[in-house]
């Protein structure tokens, strides 16, 4: 294997479609109009020397090295800034050009170290050799004595090697959009600077774009200097967020030197963020557990053992539990951090070897409402666009997402679109960075109260319907008209007007009206949303409201529009696609469908249960009830990340066999009996599917540190349970996925290796994949409008808990922090902080930086406060990256009515000053029949949220039949206190379909 060098064409491609033909050094080449001579030459196979030009950045014309001669024109123009024209004759070499280039290079070399730290990578030395520079006659002042800036943990800035070509400054401006670099002073004193401070004190977000752009050793990865030059590279996919950036993992032997973003990467086009680019050190961190461990009781110390013993112990325990407590007494959770292949194998093991459908995924707690909402309206659970689409948007509606922190590479693209004129509407309780950041600002920021999303989306749609903005042509041609008619009547009701909802949302009605008009009158309006939409009691309703809005305004089915969930984890999309939900087989096909089951039964050789299994929160309830005793947890730290941790801990304690498959010991493994070491993304061979449905290859760059692939371990466990399961390699798993799942029919490792990536559906009709979905018709045929009544959450601010807590993420840390806390990223964020508005702080005598006690009705914890106007009065905010802060001790087990996605984004809290910092965490345990309480609450919630059409009880019964396990349905019918159930639920319970489907 060799080191991949992606060609640099010097300037970006021209977007013109008309072609011109030019003659360069006697070679005739036809290129799009407005292509630079530099680029056209490179395309013709002639590399003109250059320093300040690179094809990720606009031409700059400062280094004067790429000069050429053009027949009929005077002088030696720079080829990067001169576009080709029809019939142009260009010479890239002549004695005069040589003289100019040598003169330029002699000046550069007179103020450049003789040997650069990066050796061959220094383009200055390369160009000096290329232009035939023999000697440097100049002597005088140089910059060779300037001290290095080593403040950034990941790269150095050595001004002595800098040639002030501006590539770093332009990369920071044009690509990243942070504008953190500048040239300070002028003339001889002109140097690259991060606003006169060190890099770490500057506005730099450490995305690495400048390091990548630097043609010299001035900006260099520290690992390149400590480890040495890479000798080979492997193209793979980042394992952090749902953007799914493609990287070249550059290796020296078995050691990873650096991760370099791939220009050919469909998702990122050569850009990166601090996490993917630099924060990969956790993969080989000393905390990694690489040997299986077991223990009889969670109070015992761990004992290292062999794979055989660990698997045997786990399997015999699971079998014993099933023998005693029944087939459905065990289950498992798949991980959105793992590959499609690993996830597919886990759900297969549960359905085939465990013999039940008790499989769920961590997407339950993030994007399950996206699955439900988009399936109901469009017919499939996926974002409609590719990322590139945003470049064609005129208006972007961003709801409950903070892309500059959570999806930084996409945020950069969004900012690029905004700098070209796209207008932004932000719907968020907080003043997130993109509301106003250098050179871009939102046209509208609807700063709503947490928990009122549906009210806002209804108000926006109300204005659009009332003021005549509905795209009737689109609706008539593409949508189910009956559903539209009902929706239109509903949405035009006065209760949905911005004026009526102003007191609920706190957003002035006129602002809502202006935003609605801006959105509706755009040629191309796109909606992007994140967990601020889904993690609510009405998460699914909100997703449907978003879909309604897109359909009503005709913003579906072409570039620049669409409904786009920004997925939190690298493989949320994929883990959902792979059949991780208890009611669905791969490809979002309901478990009750005998035809679908038959496809899998034939290949798997086992009968699949037709009944939906337990969702994650149902598993906890069931465990506390004594019915659920064993769990296999693939790469998810539920004891930190799931809401109401006290409840989760109690549930885990109630189980007899907890198997954790992970890289590190974590909060969940404290309750585990078997620890199966997992593999990092650098050891995996498989695929991740990002938020734009793009299936990217994950390739191993080093051998598995555990000696096994994760899917092999799953297969071993299945075999030990008595079910024969095995594959030759990851590719064979994908072949089975393709054979069983129509949307993946055309996907294989060999095809991915050939084309780079594929966006599903990829099958006979769309053999190259599908960048934009629903172009001619919706997956379900006609788009379906759903009524979305606003039902306020039961989690309300009260006298005892008067503030609303909402949670989120910051740039440098990732989720529960298991990875990023084990990297130098802690330099930016080493603890979770509670953001509180000035007025709320004053009222409570809280000072900036002081300890505060944060309490909700389920628990309390201690955090450091930051006084800020980024949150409005009445709202507080924190992150959940550190286990010590225990943010999820506070969050409740309230959840989305349709999917049980937790309501992380709204918790009523009170805050008081605390004299001391965090001690041990206080967990409160609830008594009583927790499962029954949940069942009653869930049933009433469903009743409150189904559309109020002719027979809501049928919809309720259908929903319960579709998503609840038989046992939960039985308990509703037999055990629930009927006085606590709403009349609609009671009516639904009389229907046959509540009992069976």
């Amino acid at each position: 294997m060799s080191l991949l060098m992606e060609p640099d064409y010097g300037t970006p491609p021209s977007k013109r479609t008309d072609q011109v033909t030019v003659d360069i050094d006697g070679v005739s080449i036809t290129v799009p109009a407005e292509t630079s001579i530099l680029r056209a030459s490179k395309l013709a196979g002639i590399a003109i020397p250059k320093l300040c030009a690179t094809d990720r950045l606009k031409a700059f014309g400062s280094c004067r090295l790429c000069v050429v001669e053009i027949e009929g024109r005077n002088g030696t123009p720079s080829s990067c800034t001169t576009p080709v024209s029809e019939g142009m004759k260009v010479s890239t070499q002549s004695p005069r050009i040589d003289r100019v280039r040598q003169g330029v290079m002699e000046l550069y070399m007179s103020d450049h170290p003789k040997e650069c730290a990066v050796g061959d990578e220094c383009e200055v030395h390369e160009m000096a050799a290329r232009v035939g520079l023999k000697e440097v006659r100049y002597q005088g002042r140089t910059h060779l004595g300037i001290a290095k800036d080593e403040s950034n943990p990941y790269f150095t800035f050595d001004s002595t090697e800098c040639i002030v070509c501006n590539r770093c400054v332009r990369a920071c401006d044009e690509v990243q959009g942070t504008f953190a670099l500048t040239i300070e002073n002028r003339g001889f004193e002109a140097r690259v600077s991060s606003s006169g401070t060190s890099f770490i004190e500057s506005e730099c977000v450490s995305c690495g774009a400048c390091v990548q752009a630097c043609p010299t050793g001035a900006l260099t990865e520290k690992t390149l200097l400590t480890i040495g030059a890479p000798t080979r590279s492997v193209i793979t996919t980042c394992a952090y967020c749902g953007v799914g950036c493609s990287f070249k993992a550059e290796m020296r032997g078995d050691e990873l030197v650096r991760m370099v973003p791939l220009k050919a990467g469909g998702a990122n086009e050569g850009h990166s963020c601090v996490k993917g680019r630099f924060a990969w050190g956790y993969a080989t961190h000393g905390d990694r557990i690489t040997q299986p461990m077991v223990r009889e009781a969670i109070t015992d110390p761990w004992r290292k053992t062999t794979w055989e013993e660990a698997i045997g112990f786990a399997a015999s325990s699971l079998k014993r539990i099933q023998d005693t407590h029944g087939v459905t007494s065990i289950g498992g959770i798949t991980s959105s951090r793992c590959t499609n292949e690993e996830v597919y194998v886990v759900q297969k093991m549960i359905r085939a070897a465990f013999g039940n459908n008790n499989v769920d995924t961590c997407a339950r707690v993030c994007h399950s409402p996206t699955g439900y909402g988009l399936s109901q309206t469009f017919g499939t659970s996926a974002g409609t666009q590719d990322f590139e689409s945003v470049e064609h948007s005129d208006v972007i509606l961003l709801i409950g997402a903070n892309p500059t922190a959570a999806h930084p590479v996409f945020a950069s693209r969004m900012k690029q679109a905004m700098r070209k004129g796209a207008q932004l509407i932000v719907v968020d309780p907080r003043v997130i960075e993109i509301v106003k950041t250098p050179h871009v600002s939102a046209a509208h920021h609807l700063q709503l109260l947490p928990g009122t999303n549906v009210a806002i989306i209804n108000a926006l749609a109300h204005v659009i319907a009332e003021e005549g903005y509905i795209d009737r042509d689109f609706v008539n041609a593409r949508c189910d008209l009956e559903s539209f008619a009902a929706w239109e009547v509903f949405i035009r009701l006065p209760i949905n007007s911005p004026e009526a909802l102003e007191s609920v949302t706190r957003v002035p009605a006129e602002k809502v009206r202006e935003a609605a008009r801006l959105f509706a009158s755009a040629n191309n309006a796109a909606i992007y949303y994140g967990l601020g939409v889904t993690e609510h009691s009405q998460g699914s309703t909100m997703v449907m409201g978003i879909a309604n809005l897109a359909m009503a305004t005709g913003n579906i089915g072409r570039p620049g529009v669409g409904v786009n969930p920004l997925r939190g984890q690298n493989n949320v999309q994929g883990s959902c696609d792979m059949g991780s939900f208890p009611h669905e087989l791969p490809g979002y096909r309901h478990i009750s469908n005998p035809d679908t089951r038959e496809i899998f039964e034939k290949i798997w050789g086992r009968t699949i249960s037709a009944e939906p299994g337990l969702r994650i929160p149902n598993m906890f309830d069931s465990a506390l009830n004594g019915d659920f005793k064993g769990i296999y947890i693939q790469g998810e730290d539920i004891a930190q990340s799931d809401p109401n941790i006290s409840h989760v801990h109690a549930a885990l304690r109630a189980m007899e066999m907890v198997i954790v498959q992970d890289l590190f010991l974590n909060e969940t493994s404290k309750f585990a009996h078997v620890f199966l070491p997992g593999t990092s993304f650098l050891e995996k061979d498989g695929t991740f599917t990002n938020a734009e449905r793009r299936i990217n290859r994950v390739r191993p760059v080093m051998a598995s540190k555990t000696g096994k692939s994760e899917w092999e371990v799953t297969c071993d466990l299945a075999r030990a349970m008595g079910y024969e399961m095995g594959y030759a390699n990851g590719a064979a798993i994908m072949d089975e996925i393709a054979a069983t799942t129509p949307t993946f029919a055309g996907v294989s490792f060999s095809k991915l290796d050939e084309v780079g990536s594929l966006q599903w559906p990829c099958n006979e009709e769309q053999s190259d994949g599908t960048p934009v979905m629903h172009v001619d018709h919706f997956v379900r045929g006609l788009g379906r409008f759903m009524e979305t009544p606003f039902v306020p959450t039961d989690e309300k601010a009260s006298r005892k808990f008067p503030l609303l807590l909402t949670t989120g993420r910051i740039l440098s840390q990732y989720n529960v922090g298991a990875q990023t806390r084990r990297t130098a990223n802690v330099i930016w964020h080493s603890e979770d902080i509670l953001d509180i508005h000035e007025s709320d702080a004053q009222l409570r005598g809280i000072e900036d930086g002081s300890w505060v006690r944060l309490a909700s009705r389920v628990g309390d914890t201690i955090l450091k406060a930051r006084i800020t106007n980024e949150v409005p009065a009445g709202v507080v905010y924190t992150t959940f990256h550190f286990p010590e802060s225990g943010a999820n001790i506070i969050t409740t087990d309230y959840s989305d009515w349709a999917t049980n996605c937790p309501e992380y984004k709204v918790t009523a809290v009170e805050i008081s000053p605390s004299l001391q910092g965090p001690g041990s965490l206080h967990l409160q345990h609830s008594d009583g029949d927790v499962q029954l309480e949940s069942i009653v609450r869930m049933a009433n919630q469903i009743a409150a949220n189904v559309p109020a059409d002719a027979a809501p009880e049928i919809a309720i019964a259908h929903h319960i039949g579709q998503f609840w396990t038989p046992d939960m349905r039985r308990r509703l019918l037999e055990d629930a206190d009927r006085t606590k159930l709403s009349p609609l639920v009671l009516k639904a319970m009389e229907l046959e379909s509540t009992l069976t489907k």
Partner: protein
Amino acid sequence: MTYASWSKDEALLVLSQTRDKPGPVLISLQAIQSVFGFVPTPAVALIAEACNVSRAEVHGVLTFYSDLRTFLLPANHVRVCVAEACQAVGSRELVSGLKSQGVEFDKAFCFGNCALGPSATVNGKLQGRASVDSVVKAIQG
């Protein structure tokens, strides 16, 4: 000349009048300097915020123009033109004369007053046909 001492409120007031003008960064820097006599460090972030640019960009502009300063000038500020036209009519003699008198000054490159060189300014007031005497006299006021 007397300047206001640093006040964030005062700075915000100044910026409220410059922020919406075209090319607001340079205008804001000049306005801040005219009020405070120089551009105090905290002003950089305020200008960046007001003009919706980065602090780095403000820093770039601030350090590019030699007329923009990050420190308060001495009580008397002398600048002598040392560009070609003035050199041709005696600015070198003026420079050495001032040095021998112990007068501190900054070099400047052209005040646009070439026909009347050598040129100098004392506290911003331009002198044509400047001499050591005329400069010293202006300083002594």
